[in-house]
């Protein structure tokens, strides 16, 4: 199901917790699985559940709670734009609107070329940098004015 390399990474995460609490590693395990597969299919979650010896539904609870986990296939780049209050007051909604217009898609949609997916995100803990957005869960982009968004799109389109 998962590559030996991913399993090795998951095993490493498991060692961080007491031996009888393997399920504490569920969030990292799901992230590692998603890095490999791109998204979390039911079979992937089931596999992680078996691997960590926990009920499948408990894995599903975690995967549906956090919106960094993709339960549907996504494009090559996933933008998650924060629309919580501090960002919204500093132009978060404008950033989202600009992205929607540029990409021609709404939230939770993917461009037809499969390159970009747009998601609405919750607070990323960087309100001072508002408006913020995340690229593929890992790259944080701050002060995202329309110009900076254009630059980002240009960079990623290459």
């Amino acid at each position: 199901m998962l590559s030996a390399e991913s399993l090795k990474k998951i095993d490493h995460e498991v060692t961080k917790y007491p031996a009888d609490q393997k399920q504490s590693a569920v969030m990292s395990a799901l992230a590692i699985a998603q890095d490999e597969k791109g998204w979390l299919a039911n079979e992937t979650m089931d596999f992680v559940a078996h691997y960590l010896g926990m009920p499948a539904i408990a894995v599903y609870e975690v995967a549906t709670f956090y919106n960094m986990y993709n339960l549907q296939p996504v494009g090559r780049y996933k933008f998650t734009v924060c629309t919580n209050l501090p960002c919204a007051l500093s132009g978060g909604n404008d950033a989202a609107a600009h992205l929607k217009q540029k990409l021609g898609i709404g939230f939770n949609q993917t461009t037809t070329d499969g390159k970009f997916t747009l998601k609405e995100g919750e607070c990323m803990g960087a309100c001072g940098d508002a408006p913020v957005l995340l690229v593929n869960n890992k790259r944080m982009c701050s002060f995202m004015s329309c110009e900076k968004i254009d630059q980002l799109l240009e960079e990623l389109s290459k």
Partner: protein
Amino acid sequence: MTNIEIDGKQVSVPTGGTVMDGATQLGIYIPYFCYHKKLSIAANCRMCLVQVEKAPKPLPACSTPAVEGMKVSTHSAMAVASQKGQMEFLLINHPLDCPICDQGGECQLQDLAVGYGASASRYTEPKRVVVNKNLGPLISTDMTRCILCTRCVRFGQEIAGVMELGVAGRGEHAEILTFVDSTVDSELSGNMIDLCPVGALVSKPFRYSARIWELSRRKSVSPHCGLGSNLVVQIKLNRVMRVLPRENEEINECWLSDKDRFSYEGLNSEERLTTPMIKRDGQWQECDWHTALEFVANGLKTAQEQHGAQSIGALASPHSTLEELYLLQKLIRGLGSGNVDHRLRQSDFRADSHLQGSPWLGMKIAEISQLKSALVIGSTLRKDHPLIAQRLRQAVKQGAHLNLINPVSDDLLTKVTNQVVVAPAAMAAMLAQVLKAAAELKATEIPATLKDTVSSISVTDTARAIAASLIDNKPAAIFLGNLAQHHPQYADIHMLAQHIAQIAETSFGVLGEAANSVGAYLAGAVPGPGAVGISGSSQVGANGSNASQMLGMSAIPIAEPCRAFVLMNLEPEFDSYNPQQAMKTLAAAELVVMMSAYKKHVASVDYADVLLPIAPFTETSGTFINTEGRVQSFNGVVAPLGDARPAWKILRVLGNLLQLDGFDYETPEQVRAEIFLAGSDVSTQLSNRLGSFAVGEIGQVSEGLQRIGEVPIYQADPIVRRAESLQRTHDAMAPLASMPGALLDRLGVQAGDMIKVKQGDGEALLPAARDDKLPANCVRVASAHPLTATLGAMFGEIMVERL
């Protein structure tokens, strides 16, 4: 103890207790939805908000620990405003569909909305809608009504031991569901219906059939497993509509297994027998009671005159009441026969003459929760005794060791410390290992009678670990399960376990298979000149044939075969150890009287000559003595269906027709009074000790394949076999022929292929299944099912062929 003050009243709460505990002690009412005394605390409904002095915000009473000197107001302006505010939030997304909601009338949200809700909603936006889920044939869902208290989720995790439901999503998108549309298959799932404070989870069989206020509530006792769960039976127009638990902390707590809860459907089955019937020239004809009883009396008299009294035998189900069993044996003994038995699934009766009393649990049911170590021998515990398994699960959570010696490795949904899966034939040898290990650890002598048997046995590490677990952790107990009781070496297993218990100084118990397994011994429904129990002790087994001998299943044939049978409340094709042989014997009998609540199973029509419709437990008064020896009497809750009559009345009239003495009872209380002679004490009649029984040769393993024939949970007795919804559950799936992978390969079949299973001259076509945890050369084929009723012994040799 912590002293706090609630609404101006002082109360002492045990250390670690909460404000809610204090309020409960004082009898002060605090509204709640998610709190439940048997579940962990979630504090997510926020309905129990109270004001605490010096706390800036209202706090939830269920999760706020009591602190010395705390002052709590549950009805202050702040508390009431918080509670009302919370109710408004809960009602925002809750549909106003009480008129068509099954929970209406017993809904906590409806009740509390009267006290805390506003008369009109201020919310004008669209309400959220949640898609319904299919959770299987027992639970119906209306998920839009869910208030996300998560009681059902916590019940699964904590009590049932398996997390089947969970909360997916968050915030407004949170909903209760199973993983990828699976069903809820726990054998305790029905309790989620009781726990749901709203109409999100309701009973599928009961749905839309009655309103709560139309139902009368009557007390009763479950006739299924040996636990004797206390029931509330709800009826409408002389029909049982549903069954709920009656709380009894010492027995079923506030739970009920699905078998106890949903089997009532079998009471209203189309297959109920409602008039007496006689077979004349191969044709079944309805007749009146007088004709039927005359026929039976004449038939029994003829058999007695022509072949002697010993040609008459009576077999009864241990699901029958004490009164029924007592009168049946009195009738048979009155005719001069000692052939009476209730143990149709038992195959080894060697220990009978060594019994010192009625086998029982050996301790109180409630004490199971306090155990620190337990050894369960031969039991599919979760399916045979769902609530005893639940108690053991709670004990394990408190640190108890659970050890298993079993021919199957079914998941008990709890941590198992030591598990040995051995072929049925090797179980006694395994126990001998534990015995030897225990003796070594305690540095005691092995009893002389066992020395030779045990000396040549080498002890494995697991056996040593089991012995150590029982010796080092107290209180400890050893239990013999249903599989052990049906085992062809039951007497050896019993004796070995008894010695282990003695050496390791643990409690020793036999898990009662049926509601009246203990009572049946005390009523005298065992062969011999008299009962073990209350009406005077005497030897079991003497001057009478046991079930195995009567039905010709025993290797030791009896001199005088039975020619006339009285069968009470059972279907031998499902309820006996070797249905194939039982059918042959009954077909050859001259007279078979079936006292049964049901007709229609084709096989039963073949061997019976007369059918007498008897009343099931809801239609007669009676008594069950449960596995801990607790006597529980109950009254009928509805009138008998059609012309069916309580079996005790039928037996009384038969006694009169046969001109036997002492059958002039007017009420069941008189029968009961005769059984419980003044001052008699049931507890003195209970004993698991076998006197001087000598353990036979153990450890021989036969060449061929061995069958492991357990009784599936929803096939155990005539009522549950006809409970339609239970028959659609995962647990009631048609039997498979499970075997280890090596055996499948040897046969050259794949899992899922149909194969032919043969025992004696009977065969069955079953799908093969792979179970690598089964012992080598064992084939697991469930018994007591129409598809396997043609097969032979539950633990006999079996042949498997590819098609």
